[in-house]
């Protein structure tokens, strides 16, 4: 029954193993691998019974435990380990457990520090009494790489769905134009990467129309689109070279 209480409090598989180790007062350097594997799998079963989704990392850990268990069962390996001729199959796991436990403890210490200091607020001066033209709300006290990327993202997000009025004529396009645009690339080389194709496109509308144009070319089998991985760039291949 105690499992149920703890069902959703584990940060991950390593955390779960540490729970068993603490509960059963197991010596972390001499883990009874058969027992802990059984407990672990029972826990996964329980999660399944309760229709809880088992994350991939829990499954990966189960595989690791079973592999270690199998190795421990081979008598020759067992003997070699005892004679210190061979590394204990459990050592990688022990290392992970120790490392994780270490950071878990520090996390707990940080929580205590947070409780002590999160209620302390730093001085926030208004410099206008010294100089009227300093606007603290605009000035960035520390700028990191992350800030620069975030700024870029915000500018790009702000890029109008339709550009400002006087640019509409330049920006607005239609599928035919974008098909021509795609062919302007395909006439130079038989294949073009999507990322290369759209590199110069700065407007969301044009981008969307370009994608529609590619779909149209695919539908009419004038191009073939291939992709290596799910999140990879894709390649557009001209099926009618010279057309």
């Amino acid at each position, binding site marked *: 029954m105690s499992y149920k209480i703890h069902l959703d409090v584990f940060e991950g598989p390593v955390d779960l193993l540490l729970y068993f180790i603490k509960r059963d007062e197991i010596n972390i350097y001499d883990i009874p691998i058969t027992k802990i594997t059984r407990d672990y799998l029972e826990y996964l079963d329980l999660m399944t019974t309760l229709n809880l989704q088992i994350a991939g990392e829990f499954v990966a850990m189960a595989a690791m435990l079973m592999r270690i268990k199998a190795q421990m069962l081979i008598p020759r390996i067992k003997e070699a380990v005892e004679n210190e001729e061979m590394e204990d199959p459990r050592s990688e796991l022990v290392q992970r457990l120790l490392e994780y436990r270490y950071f878990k403890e520090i996390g707990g210490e940080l929580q205590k520090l947070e409780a002590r200091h999160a209620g302390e607020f730093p001085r926030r*001066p208004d410099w206008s009494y010294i100089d009227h033209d*300093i606007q*603290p709300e605009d000035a960035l006290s520390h700028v990191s790489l992350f800030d620069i990327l975030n700024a870029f993202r915000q500018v790009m997000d702000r890029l109008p769905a339709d550009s400002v009025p006087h640019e509409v004529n330049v920006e607005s396009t239609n599928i035919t134009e974008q098909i021509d645009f795609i062919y302007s690339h395909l006439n130079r080389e038989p294949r073009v990467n999507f990322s290369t194709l759209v590199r110069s496109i700065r407007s969301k509308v044009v981008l969307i129309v370009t994608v529609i144009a590619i779909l149209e070319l695919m539908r009419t089998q004038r191009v073939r689109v291939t992709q290596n991985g799910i999140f990879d760039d894709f390649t557009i291949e001209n099926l009618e070279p010279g057309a």
Partner: protein
Amino acid sequence: METPTQTGVSLLDMQIVEALLIASDIPLTPDRLKECLDEGHRIDLAGAVEALNARYERGKHAFYIMPVGKGFQIVTVNTFETIVRNFINRNVRARLTYAALETLAVIAYKQPISKPEIERIRGVNCSAVLATLLERELITVSGRAEAAGRPLLYVTTDEFLRYFGLASPADLPRTRELNELFRTGEHAPQDQRSENETPLSD
């Protein structure tokens, strides 16, 4: 605050006013003070300020509470104006503004890029910001565009790389990386559980 106050304002009330004045960069007005206090708790703001100022003066502190409009704020005494001004010029005035950061970001990711193109992307005039960035040597002119009017093209400098601790412009984070990072984060920063339950994709 060694001795009890003589203005009838309690030590606690004086501390509350002092804490708010220290932590805020906008003036503390009676209305704003009232909003922070528990129902029924009233503080005589002007009285508290008077008592605090008396102590600051007696203690020869380097700051006092100055009335601003209907409110109050903590400022340094003018004996130290020169040194404070010097500090602000070096450490505050030299800061990048958000406008500068945004312009820098556009140049970093789209370089080489012309002013008309930067302004098209940002949607605002960028002359002053470009001047600041040039002056701080975070950007430089690399040549001229082929486009009409042959506008100057801007690129980031070695100083830019040094400032952000980059080995090369290729080390700039990709938008994809940020999107990936924020794909789940954006919707759940306050939520205790959802923060760590996403399974590993690999």
